[in-house]
């Protein structure tokens, strides 16, 4: 055996003995880390839930890529394709009016999953919020004023269906029609995986003016980016907290076990090996704490997902608390937490080399 194998064996025996005999000293920091990880997982899962729902709601309605002109391009991954116009218009009914985005499409089947009442037939599909604002119902006729130059052109449409995407701006400001007489100036693509829009854009549409749903809905997608930042911030704070909590418990542990340190030094143990004993202990604490937190966290997320807790509608774009486990944060936080803990433990245990053997031996 090499010297290192011997000293590692001593470190192992010491860690085993210390854990066996002083389990209660491990309880507090383990629980502290578990609670931190638990909170981290629940919070990031809620943030992730909102984000995924928002992305889902946007991409269910809004074209994943909008290309200027009529595009005939076809490639695998496309779910639907249509030609359309998008114009600023004014809509009026019974004395109330509002400015809307008039989406004039040659094929309105993309709306299918968002329709909450009525049928997809010839006429106008109107967002739920807009219908409430105008106090209009299915069967009523509304007037649309398209502004072409300085002369507004008025046209009447019968409301045939109401849609609800869950995104307020779509539900309150969009009117979808199918005007067989108009010339369509844009092509809309919907993909199997909307998150691939950016990739498709650079692959197939780099020479034509094209916009992904992300680029067209910057204010909404920025929310997602900010959410990601918040999740990262929370992770950083919880990881730092875990690091401090463990380094604090190590300091305490070193002070209460000064005598053992003195004994080990008198036996000729190297400072770095004594440090290893304490670092291993904190590593064990953080792994157990992490696993405990992960267990509680995923359990909580599963229960929340099952319960679909009601939240006030109108403030958010959903009326229940959406949760979705953020696997990448849950996974990476393990490595970050253990890494930070080892780092902090290493810094903290450096004080061991400053402990005087004889003084430590007198400690009771």
């Amino acid at each position, binding site marked *: *055996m090499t*010297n290192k194998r*011997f*000293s590692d*064996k*001593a470190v192992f*025996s*010491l860690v085993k*003995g*210390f854990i*066996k*005999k*002083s389990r209660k000293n491990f309880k507090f920091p383990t629980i502290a880390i578990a609670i931190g990880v638990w909170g981290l997982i629940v919070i990031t899962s809620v943030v992730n839930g909102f984000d995924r729902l928002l992305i889902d709601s946007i991409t269910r309605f809004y074209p994943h890529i909008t290309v200027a002109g009529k595009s005939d391009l076809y490639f695998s991954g496309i779910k639907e394709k249509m030609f359309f116009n998008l114009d600023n218009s004014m809509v009026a009914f019974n004395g109330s009016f509002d400015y809307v985005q008039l989406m004039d499409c040659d094929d309105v089947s993309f709306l299918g999953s968002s329709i909450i009442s009525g049928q997809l037939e010839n006429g106008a599909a109107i967002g739920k919020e807009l219908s409430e604002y105008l106090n209009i119902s299915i069967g009523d006729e509304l007037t649309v004023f398209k502004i072409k130059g300085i002369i507004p052109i008025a046209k009447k449409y019968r409301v045939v269906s109401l849609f609800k995407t869950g995104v307020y701006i779509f539900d309150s400001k969009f009117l979808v029609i199918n005007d067989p007489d108009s010339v369509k100036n844009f092509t809309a693509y919907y993909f199997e995986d909307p998150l691939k829009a950016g990739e498709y854009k650079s692959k197939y549409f780099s020479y034509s003016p094209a916009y992904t749903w992300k680029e067209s809905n910057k204010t909404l997608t920025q929310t997602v980016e900010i959410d990601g930042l918040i999740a990262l911030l929370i992770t950083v704070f919880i990881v730092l907290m875990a690091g401090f909590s463990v380094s604090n418990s190590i300091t305490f542990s070193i002070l209460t076990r000064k*005598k*053992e340190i*003195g*004994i*080990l030094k*008198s*036996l*000729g*143990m190297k400072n770095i*090996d004594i440090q290893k004993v304490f670092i291993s202990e904190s590593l064990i604490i953080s792994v157990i704490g992490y696993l405990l937190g992960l267990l509680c966290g995923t359990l909580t997320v599963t229960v929340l997902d099952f319960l679909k807790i009601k939240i006030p509608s109108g403030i958010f774009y959903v009326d229940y608390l959406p949760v979705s486990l953020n696997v990448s944060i849950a996974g990476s936080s393990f490595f970050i937490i253990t890494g930070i803990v080892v780092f902090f433990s290493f810094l903290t245990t450096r004080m061991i080399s400053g402990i005087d*053997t*004889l003084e430590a*031996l007198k400690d009771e």
Partner: protein
Amino acid sequence: MNENIILTAEGIFYSYDKKNPVLKGLDIKVLKNEILTLYGPSGSGKSTLIYILGGLLTQDAGKILYNIEDKKRKIGFVFQNYNMLNELTVFENCKVAQNIRSFDDDRQIFDYAEKIGITDILYRYPAELSVGQLQRSAVLRSISGPVELVFCDEPTGSLDSENKRNVFELFSQLKEYVAFFVVSHDEVSKKYADRVLNMSDGIIL
């Protein structure tokens, strides 16, 4: 250095408070293959001398030469207050001591334990031991591994005469490889000692 000498110290001065010296220009030699017993009244500086010779304290003045290779691994201590690791059993204490000294041999521990009559308590924790058992456990740990020089501070103070004899009997058997520097007031230790030194007021008489 003479082949038979394991350690020489010359002109050792030490003071805890930098005012009142505890050791006052002390000279001492320890030979290989010997049990050296040191007597002296309480407070004369015996423990202090052991700490300095064993490298746990550094002298204010004077010179110490060792005839030991890799001395950190080769020096053992039996402290006046035993200093066992409470979280480990007696056996684990000895095992850790062996490992720290880059050594690993269960038989050595069993063999020595049998000779000083503590085989039956090897798997007990220090808190479960009598003072005499603790003292013998501390002795066992001090000689676990490839030690060549062992400093014992009153290693048999709490033992009955039979157990005292057992401990010194083991020291005698081991002295072919290990030098023992024993602080003791015991008549028994005098009987087993190859040399007896007297210390008083910071010097060897």
